[in-house]
C-alpha cells in the first residue's frame, strides 16, 4: 500500500442521501421523450408528403412466431406508419416498445420500400419501470428519507453513471419488427 492510500475518505451512502435534498431517487421514473412520432416520421422520410398510420394488434400466433425470431417482452401493439410521396410508397415506420431489465424503450424503425432499414431512433426511454426491489433490507434504511416527487430522468439528474445497460433486448425488438415487416410484405 502506498502512503497516499491514507488519504482516501470513507462515507456512508445513507449519509450522502441525508445530506442532499434530491436524495436517492425512488423507483418511479417518468419517461424522457427524445423524439415525437411525427419527428421520427419526418427524419426518416423527409421527402414524404403523407403518412398513413394504423395500429397492428398482434395475434397470439404472430407473437409466438416472433418469439421464435428473438425473444423479448413486447407489448403486442405496433404502430405502422406508411410514408408516401404522391402515390409512391417510400417505406414504413414501425413504432414499438420493448421491456428490458431496467428500462422500457419506445423506438422507431424505418424500413425503405426496398426492405432495408433506413433508421433506428429511440423515442422514449424510461428507467427502472416495473423494476423489482433488489435488496429490501437495504432500501428500508431510506424509508421516509425519499422525496415523493418523481425522478425525471435527464432533467433532475442528467448524468447517471453506472455499469453498462445492455441494449440487447432492443436489438431483439428490431429483429422481430423486421420479421413482422417481411410477413406483412408477403400479404400486401
Amino acid at each position: 500500500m502506498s502512503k497516499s492510500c491514507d488519504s482516501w475518505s470513507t462515507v456512508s451512502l445513507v449519509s450522502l442521501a441525508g445530506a442532499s435534498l434530491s436524495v436517492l431517487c425512488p423507483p418511479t421514473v417518468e419517461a424522457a421523450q427524445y423524439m415525437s412520432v411525427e419527428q421520427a416520421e419526418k427524419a426518416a422520410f423527409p421527402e414524404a408528403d403523407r403518412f398513413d398510420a394504423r395500429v397492428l394488434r398482434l395475434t397470439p400466433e404472430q407473437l409466438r412466431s416472433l418469439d421464435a425470431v428473438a425473444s423479448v417482452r413486447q407489448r403486442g401493439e405496433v404502430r405502422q406508419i406508411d410514408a408516401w410521396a404522391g402515390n409512391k410508397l417510400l417505406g414504413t415506420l414501425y413504432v414499438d416498445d420493448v421491456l428490458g431489465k431496467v428500462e422500457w424503450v419506445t423506438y422507431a424503425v424505418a424500413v425503405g420500400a426496398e426492405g432495408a432499414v433506413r433508421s433506428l431512433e429511440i423515442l422514449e426511454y424510461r428507467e427502472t419501470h416495473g423494476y423489482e426491489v433488489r435488496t429490501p433490507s437495504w432500501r428500508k434504511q431510506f424509508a421516509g428519507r425519499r422525496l415523493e416527487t418523481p425522478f425525471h430522468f435527464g432533467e433532475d439528474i442528467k448524468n447517471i453513471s453506472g455499469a453498462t445497460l445492455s441494449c440487447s433486448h432492443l436489438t431483439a425488438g428490431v429483429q422481430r419488427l423486421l420479421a413482422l415487416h417481411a410477413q406483412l410484405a408477403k400479404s400486401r
Partner: protein
Amino acid sequence: MSTCTLRRIRPWLGTYVHIDVTAPNAHCAETALQAAFSEIATIHQAMSFHAPGSEVSHLNREAHLHPVVVSAHTLAVLVASRRFAQQSGGIFDPTIAPTLVQHGLLPCPVAADADGRASWEDIEISTDGQVRFLRPLWIDLGGIAKGYAVDCAIDALQHAGAQNACVNAGGDLRHFSRQGERHPLAIRHPADASLSVPLGHIANQAVASSGNFLLGRRGHQTGASPIVHPHHGVAQSRPRSVTVIANTCCEADALTKIVSLLGQDASPLLARLSASAAIIEAPDTLQASPGFWSALGHDSAEGPPRHA
C-alpha cells in the same frame, strides 16, 4: 441569444448512447448530433469484438500471421491500451478476451486459439501504423473503446459548434460546456440499480463506472464479472462499483478497470493522470480518493455536508 437544445438516444456500443446538445440554432444542433453519432457508429463498427467484419475481428484472425493495417481510430485505441497496460503494470490488459469468452461474457470468435501465454506485450505497433501480434491472441477493446468513442463524439459536437453537450454511453460520459456550466452527476447504487445517488457536479470532465451489477444478475448472486485480473484470471463477484472522474472518457473508462482490481493502490496512477475515483460497496460504503470530492465541486475533502 436564442439557442436550441436537442436530445437523442441511439443504440450503439452495446448500450444506449444519450447525447444532449445545445447549439446556437436547430440546424447546428442537428448537424452536431449527426456528426457525433456518425463518429460513434464508425468506432463501433471498427472495434466490435462480436462483428466478424470489424477491424478487431480482422486483427484477431490475422495479426499473428502478418502485419495488419488498421484505421486511425483503432490505432489510437490500441496505442492507448498499451499505454494503460504499461502504466498499470499489466493490470489493464486488452488481451484477456479468452477469459471473457470462457465465462460466456463474449462470444467465441472465428480465429485461431489464443496462446495462453499471450499478453499486451505481444501487440506490436509499427511506426507506420501496422499491427502485428507476436503470438495468436484475442484483443477486446471493450474496456476502453466506449470511453474513446465518447471523447470522439464530444470532439465532433464541439467542432460542429455546440455550446454545451453531454454524451453518455451507458454510464461512460463526458460533459462539455463553452461557458463552463456545471452538470449534476449521480451514480447507480451497486446493490439496487433503481436507486441513484447524487454526488455533485462536473464541468468539462469525464466520468466512467464499472461494476458487476446491472448485467441481468441479482445483487449478491452475481456471476462472473467482466473485470478480470490478467494474472489471476479470477473475476470479482462482490456487488461493488468503481467510478472514475478524469479529463477524458478514454482515461476514465480504462481507469475503472484498474481501480476495480488495484483498489487504493491505484492512487499513484490516478494522481499521474489528474484523475480521482470512488469505490462503492454494498450495502453502504463509498471510499473516495484524494481529489474526488473537489472534482465534483465540493469544498470539503470529505465530500458534501451530511447528516449523521
